[in-house]
Structure formats: C-alpha cells, structure tokens
C-alpha cells in the first residue's frame, strides 16, 4: 500500500521542530509499524538524507521504549499494545498518518520522535523500592505468605512498562497513572508496608517537582495504556497519600 506520512522532525532539544511530509510505497500489511519506519529510513539513507530517529528496542511490547503519537493517539489506533506491536494491517492504502513524539512538558524532545523520560526514573528513585539489603540473607520466601488475590493485583500494577503513554494521553500531562502503579505494587504487598507512608509522600512530591500536571479523572490514561493499568491504582494512591498526610 501507499502511505502519506507527516512526521515531526527536530534536530535536538534546543532547535525548533516541524512536520515534514513523506510518501511511502510498497508497505505490506504484515509489517509492524516500526518496520514500516525502517523502510522509510532505508529510503532516506539511500538518498543521503538523515533517517527519522525514534526510540525502540525489544520490539516485543515489553521494554516500553517505543513512544509514538500516531494520528493523535499514543501507540496508535489499536488498544492495549505498544507501537512495536502495531501492524500495518490496521491501516489502509492511501492513508495519511501523522507521527509525533510524546507531548508533555516533562518529556522534552531529544531528537525527532525521541523524548527524554528520565523524570519517570527520578520518581522511582524517590521511593519506588523496598529497602532491603541486596547482599544479605533474607528470610525464606515462603515465610511471607501472600493472599493470591493481593499478589495478582500487585503483579497487575507492576506490569507498567513506564512508556509514558499515560502522560502523553492526558490533557494535563499528569503522571498519576504511572506513579500510582508503582506505589500500588508495593502498597499491596506485606513487604512494602514498613515504608508505605514515606514512599507515597516522596514519590508524589517528586512527581510534582518534575512538572507533570494534575489528575482530573478524565481516564484517557487508562484507555491508552498498553498494559491496561487500572484507574483503581490512582484511587489507591490517593488513599495512601491521604493516610500519609493524616499520619504525617
């Protein structure tokens, strides 16, 4: 099929970017979206032009590196997948496709379609862990029985891949879904209780410092999340935070 692509090109963080038009022929329906971009880049290189840079790595939907706004939606039109899992069978011959980087103040553009998401790392560094000595000899794993339902809920929160689609989808560029998933994973486990109060306070403080917006319960984050992270986590984080404030 033949596609008309409009792609955001930006040399680096300090230069101004712009949309550039490309026409691409010979796209097959069983190609992934990123393989389609690979082919575009091969063409550009053969013409001596600079290829379009985009973040990607595992191409299996789990590392969370790929991050494209496709026709205004994070990770494109299909639900519950990352861009690397999006296949061209979701598009038709002659389609125009608009491709942009994640849109959020806290995610500055690095180059073309690549953004800097280290704000997410700093939120986790503020308290997204359980403080156990990694070189020690902890108690036997089965000495901490955990209700299956709680373990599963914790796992579901922990499946967040930190891609940033929730932020990009949010009209306020809020990081509540991401942060709440990280808080919830530990809040649901007995091991995580000891530092629960400090954890939620520190992580929320860091999230605000990074310049993410507020949550207005629109729910776009949950809809666009490739892993289906639930809004329940935001409610849980709010409760944890309220408890921490009262206790604090």
């Amino acid at each position, binding site marked *: 099929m033949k596609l008309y692509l409009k792609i955001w090109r930006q040399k*680096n963080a300090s230069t101004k970017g712009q949309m550039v038009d490309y026409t691409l022929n010979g796209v097959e329906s069983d190609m992934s979206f990123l393989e389609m971009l*690979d082919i575009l880049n091969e063409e550009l290189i053969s013409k001596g032009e600079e290829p379009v840079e985009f973040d990607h*790595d595992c191409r299996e939907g789990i590392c969370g590196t790929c991050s494209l706004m496709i026709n205004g939606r994070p990770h494109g039109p299909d639900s519950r997948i990352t861009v690397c899992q999006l296949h061209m069978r979701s598009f038709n011959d002659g389609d125009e496709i608009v491709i942009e980087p994640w849109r959020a103040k806290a995610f500055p553009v690095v180059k073309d379609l690549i953004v800097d998401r280290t704000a997410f790392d700093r939120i986790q560094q503020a308290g997204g862990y*359980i403080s156990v000595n*990694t*070189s020690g000899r902890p108690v036997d794993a089965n000495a901490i029985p955990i209700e299956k339902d709680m373990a599963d809920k914790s796992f579901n929160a*922990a499946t967040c*891949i*930190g891609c940033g689609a929730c932020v990009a989808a949010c009209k306020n560029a809020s990081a509540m879904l991401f942060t709440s998933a990280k808080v919830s994973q530990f809040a649901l486990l007995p*091991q995580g209780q000891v530092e629960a109060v400090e954890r939620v306070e520190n992580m929320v403080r860091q999230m605000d410092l990074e310049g993410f917006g507020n949550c207005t319960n629109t729910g776009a984050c949950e809809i666009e999340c490739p892993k289906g992270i639930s809004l329940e986590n935001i409610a849980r984080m709010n409760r944890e935070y309220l408890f921490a404030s009262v206790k604090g």
Partner: protein
Amino acid sequence: MGVLDSKEPQGPLANKWTKHKNEIDLVNPANKRNIDIIVVGTGLAGGSAAATLAELGYNVKTFCYQDSPRRAHSIAAQGGVNAAKNYQGDGDSVYRLFYDTVKGGDYRSRESNVYRLAEVSTNIIDQCVAQGVPFAREYGGLLDNRSFGGVLVSRTFYAKGQTGQQLLLGAYAAMNRQIQRGKIKSYTRHEMLDLVLVDGKARGIIARDLVNGEIERHSAHAVVLATGGYGNLFFLSTYCMGANVMAAWKAHKKGAFFANPCFTQIHPTCIPVSGDHQSKLTLMSESLRNDGRIWVPKRLEDAQAIREGKLKPTQLGEEERDYYLERRYPAFGNLVPRDVASRAAKERCDAGFGVNKTGEAVYLDFSAAIMRYGREKALTSGMKDVDDNTIRELGEKIVEAKYGNLFQMYEKIVDENPYKTPMMIYPAVHYTMGGLWVDYNLQTTIPGCYAAGEANFSDHGANRLGASALMQGLADGYFVLPYTIGDYLSDDIRTGPIPTDSPEFDAAEKNVTDRLQKLMSGTGIHSVDYYHKKLGKIMWNKCGMSRNAKELKEAIKEIAELRKDFWENVKIPGSPDGKNQELEKAGRVADFLELGELFAKDALERNESCGGHFREEYQTPEGEALRDDENFKFVSAWEYMGEPSDAKLHKEDLVYENIKVKTRSYK
C-alpha cells in the same frame, strides 16, 4: 598469558563456595568508600551487581545505552527463574539442579561454577520476594512453581509470562535505592567504546554520550561487563534491537579471551519469519510447552494442503497428526531441552512437513489442554452434563490466566486466534552461551575486568536449559561478584582515585575518535542494515542450526570479504556530534563483522556435535548429536592477535569429578 587458571577451589564440591568465601580477601567497609567500580550494562546481572556493590559501600557508576536501566532486554524474558527450593516436594535438590544444568549443557560447562549457581539459587528467590517481586502464588499464599524443558521437577518460579520484567524491576528498584543514596551514578544513553588498561589492569572505559555525541573518560579500580549476548549478529533473533557485543569485543581486543563463541542457543518456540522486511523475531515462552502439544501432519499431502491454505489444522484428527516429540522422546515428550526440540522441528520441516507458507513452521496446539482444564473446572464447580462448548470456554479461561499475554502477543503479530487454531512456531536464535572467558571469580584474563551474566561463558555449557539465564544473571550480580571482586580490590585500598589524564586514557580516546571518524568517512551507498542483513544470512545459513566444515570455511571467507566492503562502502548520514542512531548501529555491526568470523572459526575447530552446535558430520544413525568427549571436553578460549583469522586457541580442560559424563538421552 596463555595459561587459563580457573582458580576453582579444591575440596568437596558442596563446600567449594563456602571455602572460597572464607579464604578470599575482604575489603574493610571504610576502605570500600575509596574504591570505584564501573558496571557496564544494567540488565539482571549488571543491575543486581551494581545495587549490591553499592550496598556494600563501593562507589558505582553504571552505563547503559537505553534511556533507563529498566529497559534492558532481561525485561523480555518470559518463563521463569529456577531455584532448588523443593517447595513441591517432588525430589528436587541443589545437586539435582546442578546435575540437570550440567547435563542440559551437554557437559561443556564448569562443574564448580554450576554447583555454586544451584547453591545460591535458593537465595535468589528469598532476595527477590523480600524486594517485593510479585511471583505467582497458590491460594494458600505460598509460591507457585512450574516445570520447564529438560527437567522432571517443578522448580521454576514465575510471574505470569513476565518473569524477566518483574525480576528486572526488582533489581532496578534496588539500583534506584542506591542512586537515591548517592552510591550509584547512573549514565543512561551512554555506550562503552573502549576499555582502558593501565599497567595491564582494567582501569576505566571510554564512553560516548549518545545524546550529544561527546566522548567521555571514566576511571575505576575495576570494570564489570554485564552486557548480555551477541545473538544479534544473526540479524534476525529474539534479542532486542540494540543488543551488541561492543563492550565485550573491545575487552577481547585488549586481552580478554573470548570463550566458545560458536555456542548459540536456538529456541524452539518462536513466531516464524513472515517476510523479507522483518526486523526481529518474537519468542513464545517455553513454558507453553507444559500445556501445548507440538505436531505436524503425518502425511506430506496434508502438509502441502495446509501450506496452500486448502486445509485447516483443526480439520485433521488425532490419528492424522504426528506428535513427533512425544513419539521420539517418550520420557520428556514436549518438554525435551531446547536444542533437541529445535533440531526435531527443523528435521520435520526439512522433510517437507512444515505448515506455514515457507514451510518453516510446526504447530503448538492447546486444544487438548483447554478441554482437560475445562473438564476439571466443570467438575470442581459442580457442573454436571455440560456440553463441549461450555467446557472449552471454561478451559480457555484457565489457559488465559496462565498465558494470556503470550496469546495476545501472538494474535497481534500473526492475526490468528491461538485459542481457536494452533500456534505456528519455529526455532530462532535466542541466547549465546559463549562469551568472555572468566575464572571462578568471574574475572576475565584482564586483571580487574569482570564479566557477569550472558556476557560470560561459564555456566550454561553448550546449551542452556529454560529458566536458567535469569538465575545466572541474578546469582552473578547479587551473590557471586560482590564477594569475589573484593579479593582483587583488597590490593587497591591505597591506590586512590585513578586519574583520567594518563597516556593510556589519551591513547584509548584517540583510538575511539579515529574509529568514529573512519566510520563517518565512508563514501559508499549502502546502509548499515544492508551489511547487517547480509552478515545475518551468512550466519544463519552456514553457522546456524546445523553446520558443516565446507560451509563454515565459506562463511569465514565471505564474512572477511563483507567486512572489507563495509569499511569501504558503508554510508552514515549526519554527524558524530549529536544523536546519530546510524552511527551507533554502524559501530555495533563493525564488531559483529569481526566476531562473526571468530564464531565460524570456533565452530570449524570443534569437530563434534554438542548442544546448540550441531555439526552435520558428527551425528548418530538416528540423527542425534554425537559428542566427542575424548577430544573436545574443553572450553575454547580465543586470544586476540589482530585479524580474527589469526586468533589463537587456548583450551581449558573440563574436569568432571562429581558427575558421570554420559550420552544425553531424553528418550
């Protein structure tokens, strides 16, 4: 150099590690504050090593090419992590895990290392649970287990099909705690371009900031390479796109021996190749073989009809299907080790029984499991006289709970519903058992340069059993390296900070900038991927699932020619002064073009079939791999002497004192 001293402790196997820990030198906590360690790579091995070294008090700098340490490809590991906990009471023990691993590795791993791995495996689970890793649980709240290929017990701990993700997030969380404490400084979007040696010791690295293109000097008292494997030299593989051999290869060029480069794991359950545009292959977890039955049609005409789209697999009855693994290997059935399952699939497809358009796929069928689970669920729910459709629905729900994400992934890629029609699978390159040669302390042949996880060679032998890679990465990082590195660093307590303005750093940096300049100066027309794909084709066709002397000789010649062409004709647009993904790829492919030749040379040298290395000249009348223990029970460790063709072979003889070397049989 020339003598490979494994530094294996003497004495009874079960006491070796304890004895070693008691005897090696320690560094006083106050002195650890004066010692710097560089860790390159932040996957399971690097992340856990960095966190633990920082916990102990060393100053750690970590480097990864990704934008966050948590994106390392360990995250994509699906199935699980082994540990000899014997929670199921099915007869597991440290010795049995050790035995299965050595046997599964076709007796080409080091006995003492593997025993230690089995020994510390139980600590890994305790550690990860304490860190909040949400492993699967039974209703009683205790940890659940499942079984994997090549073993007869259930010792695999898992978190649905995302075990690697959860374990990596655990290690990453531990890293974050140390970053917050100021004990780890994390350099992301950075790539190591050279290793710096001062007085013969590893004392730092030259790295490139991939965002602004700046070349940086970083010094340390020791350097740990935890940079994963080199399977991307095949171009198509289950590796992430950025996985490379750069750090290990640079260390090799500076004197670290490269061991068993030809030992590659081909994983049997990947989604088959669909076309020429394909950039990578996706794995379906081996755990699926617990419930999936593998088959091809019994009759050639049925296979052909399926390929032509005239017949559906669901139209073939039980008696028209060949469950070839169950037929050939009744004891292990669909759970034979990966090399055996892979070769058996290739054998059937080569014989004309393949089931996709290209004839390179077999079926992995869940219909029997779905009905079995459905019937059990109906009974336990008190439902009587239910019809097949209801049973199927109930069964599909159970299978979804176990493997839902994998089924979803398959459906997205192939556009077929695997609950209704069998999956198609085919073997693909998945893991490299070769890597930098290390001694018992995980030190390479360069003093102060260590290798951990997939980047070293020691534990998996010629073939890796399932759920053992995560185990090795975490064992090395959490429990082995942090001890053994102290033995070396105890001599460095008075050294003080290592200056980066020495002639050695000057020379290494010049070396790096010259090479970048040379890459950028290419005037040809071909992209980096053009060369990478060509290399991949040579590797897969002549050094892949089966190899022979004639084709290996051809491969060596073709790779050398391709390398020459690359350096003359590669075209890299843009500049080296900022983000430039083509330049990043070019540096990596340039290394693959050297390693590929050494790989083929190693395969040619090894006149036996063994694990993932199947030489067509050496097979039994039944087509099974024929090992030659008398002549090849050794590790081949290659010393860099200039061109890959000049590499010098050193042999570490493998001694088995505690295990009887037998013919591997899974019948």
